């Protein structure tokens, strides 16, 4: 019997990098096959080649034993290959059923398609209402839409790219059940991830990539995480050093009874939010995205101001009415969730990007940019935070996600802030860089700074935070001490109370948990 999909000696070069170097792998029918690797290891390129969104420079692809010559996403789909992207390929301004209709080959008849969607989504245990607008859906629900879209075409091979990075633990469990059910029906699944525990729990086989090369194939259920991690990272794994916190007496950041209406109906109202962060400690804010994090972050960073000035205090100074730059004068530094566009200007060079926030640190004199100082400043960050870049003159968009994130975190930390606000510090960043960024954040806090980390990754929060807050539907829970709480408790806070009104309204009463 032929493998469902076989890759032989795939090579793909981009200017300056070899993304895939002689990669071969075989996926059997009904097999859940992990492609493990750090970001930048070449996983995404390989998937694009399988899916036909990119062409290999050399090498062969066989599907059920037949060679696949030059192909594109349309021919791949005709072969029964479907892909769920990490950044969902959904249109926000139209409904679920319209989104799916766009990639369905069937006649354009929305009512019958909606019926099919409802049936199929229930059969695989992930009910969705086909008539809801996508911008109203949570990330987990959007993923369901993506998966259902693929399932409608009864795929023979389903590719999932980092599917759990934005899901709650409960939603991950559900997703895995669905995937196992699919595999049992004979569908092959390619599961791209850098999360070892998930791969060990779910996958039958794993192909590990590093720097574009296959460094090993393993049966993850019979291999220890350490061995897998070695194949992935190569050198010794970075270890985290988190010493006990020494919180300052007075809080650096105080938020009291902050309530605010969302700016638009995509947002969530904040309801009576109160918490504080002391110097020397890291406080984590957990929650599924779209529960008010964006609003809270905008209010804390100063992108949005609030009428009651003492709702937010920074080092005792009422700051809720201050603009972002005035808050930065009080010692605030901020790493936003979106690296490109909000954390850095994509088309500008790294040194130009340092001037954006480091203009008070000597890179601007008498209103003129001191290029040499700015360049030196950027070079210092590149050096100190081990950013892989072509020097201070390379553009922000030329860096990989992890490296740009290191650069942005480095830029903010170089300002020696009293209060650091970080959103999704390691979203889409590989293991090595993640560990480095987390360690940097820990070091900053142990040197006395107050740090607030907003993240959807519980592992990350549990690794570095001293106290945890959970945000859900615009409400923030009382703080939990990390050492005395566990994932279950946090996970429940993230979901348990969120039997949301629109889910009630949509009539899918059999969904117990929103995810």
């Amino acid at each position, binding site marked *: 019997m032929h493998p469902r999909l076989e890759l032989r000696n795939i090579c793909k070069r981009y200017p300056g990098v070899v993304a895939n170097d002689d990669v071969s792998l075989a996926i059997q029918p009904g097999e859940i096959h992990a492609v493990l690797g750090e970001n930048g290891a070449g996983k995404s390129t390989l998937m694009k080649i399988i899916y036909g969104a990119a062409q290999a420079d050399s090498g062969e692809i066989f599907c059920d034993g037949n060679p696949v010559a030059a192909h594109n*996403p*349309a021919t791949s789909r005709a072969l029964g290959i479907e892909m769920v992207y990490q950044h969902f*390929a959904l249109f*926000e*301004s139209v409904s679920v059923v319209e989104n799916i*209709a*766009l990639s369905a080959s069937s006649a*354009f008849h929305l009512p019958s398609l909606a019926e099919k969607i409802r049936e199929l989504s229930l059969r695989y245990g992930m009910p969705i209402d086909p008539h809801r607008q996508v911008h109203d859906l949570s990330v987990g629900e959007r993923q369901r839409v993506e998966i259902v879209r693929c399932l409608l075409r009864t795929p023979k091979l389903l590719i999932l790219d980092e599917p759990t990075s934005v899901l709650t633990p409960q939603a991950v469990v559900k997703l895995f059940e669905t995937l196992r059910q699919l595999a049992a029906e004979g569908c092959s699944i390619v599961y791209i991830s850098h999360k070892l525990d998930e791969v060990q729990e779910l996958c039958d086989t794993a192909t590990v990539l590093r720097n574009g090369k296959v460094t090993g194939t393993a049966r993850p259920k019979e291999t220890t995480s350490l061995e897998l991690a070695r194949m992935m990272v190569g050198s010794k794994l970075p270890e985290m050093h988190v010493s006990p916190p020494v919180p300052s007496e007075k809080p650096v950041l105080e938020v009291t009874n902050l309530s605010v209406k969302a700016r638009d*109906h995509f947002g969530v109202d904040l309801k009576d939010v109160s918490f504080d962060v002391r110097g020397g400690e890291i406080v984590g804010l957990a929650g599924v995205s779209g529960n008010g994090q964006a609003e809270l972050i905008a209010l804390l960073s100063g992108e949005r101001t609030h009428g009651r000035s003492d709702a937010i205090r920074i080092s005792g100074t009422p700051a809720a009415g201050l603009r972002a730059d005035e808050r930065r004068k009080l010692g605030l530094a901020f790493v936003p969730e979106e690296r490109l566009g909000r954390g850095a200007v994509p088309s500008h060079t790294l040194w130009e990007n340092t001037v954006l926030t480091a203009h008070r640190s000597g890179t601007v004199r008498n209103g003129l940019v001191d290029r040499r100082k700015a360049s030196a400043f950027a070079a210092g960050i590149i050096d100190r935070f081990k950013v892989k870049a072509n020097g201070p003159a390379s553009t922000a968009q030329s860096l990989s996600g992890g490296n740009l994130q290191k650069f942005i975190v480095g830029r903010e930390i170089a300002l020696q802030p009293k209060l650091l606000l970080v959103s999704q510090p390691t979203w889409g960043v590989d293991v090595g860089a993640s560990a480095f960024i987390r360690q940097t954040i820990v070091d900053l806090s142990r040197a006395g700074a107050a740090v607030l980390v907003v993240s959807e990754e519980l592992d990350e929060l549990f690794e570095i935070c001293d106290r945890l807050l959970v945000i859900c539907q615009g409400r923030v829970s009382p703080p939990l001490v990390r050492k005395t709480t566990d994932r279950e408790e946090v996970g429940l806070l993230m979901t348990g109370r969120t039997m949301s009104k629109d889910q009630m309204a949509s009539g899918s009463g059999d969904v117990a948990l929103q995810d």
Partner: protein
Amino acid sequence: MDLFIAIFTGTIIAATPLIFAALGELVVEKSGVLNLGIEGMMLMGAALAFWAVTAGYSMPAAILAGALAGAAASLLFGVLALTFLTNQYAAGLALAIFGSGVSAFLGRGFGSEPIEALHGVDFPVLSGLPLIGPLLFRFDPMVYLALAMFVAISWFLYRTKAGLVLRTIGESPQTSHAIGYPVIRIRYMAVLFGGAMAGLAGAYLSVAYTPLWVENMTAGKGWIALALVVFATWRPLRILLGAWLFGGMTILQLQGQALGLEVPSELLSALPYLATIIVLVLISRNRQMLALHFPASLAKPFRPAS
């Protein structure tokens, strides 16, 4: 009563070129392309249609010539903006200026004699009805065509798969490309359609509305059409209402001038423009609605990734 009929029918007629031009631009912008050159395309359409009539072609042929001229002009923009990925604002402005220049050049030989205008339709029975006949059933065919286009475009955008594809390309060409739609080709078709509609609008001006040729006879209507699309928050019905509002103000100020109001006529002439913009600004203040209907990729060049 005659005055009411005159104002009503005058409004509908004055709104017709705007309906054509703005609906065409709506389709273009919904695909994520911003063509600022409506004024230029309208002038090309007006000049060609006028020429065709004076050259002895039939009225339908002349109007078709206007539409083709508009489409040809828009193709110029399409090549620049879609194939060579130039800045869409610059390409559109260039087209506006180019169209006005070329049409003026073509029109040098046209003379200043008016031509016989497009006739009203004579519906059996209906046109003869008292009140309703003159109010609704004696317009020229282009007025009915404009309304038919409104229905057709609304239906196309919100009820057909092709319309859905067009709208989603306007939201995210990258995603559309990823699921296999020919973004550039569809955008070309939208641009050509918008050009043809602007050409129709221009043709209407020179063969029906004021059946003579005057340089720059569009007098800014292309820009008003452009503003209509934005202030109507990219929705067909609001475009229709906005165009009627503009038409109504145009007629009212003409009546006002005829009555000899003690207001400078220049100010009165500016009234329709002012009123349309004020009203549309007021109704487009709801930013949520704006966000929902705004084509997110508007004016952003798109190059398919390889």
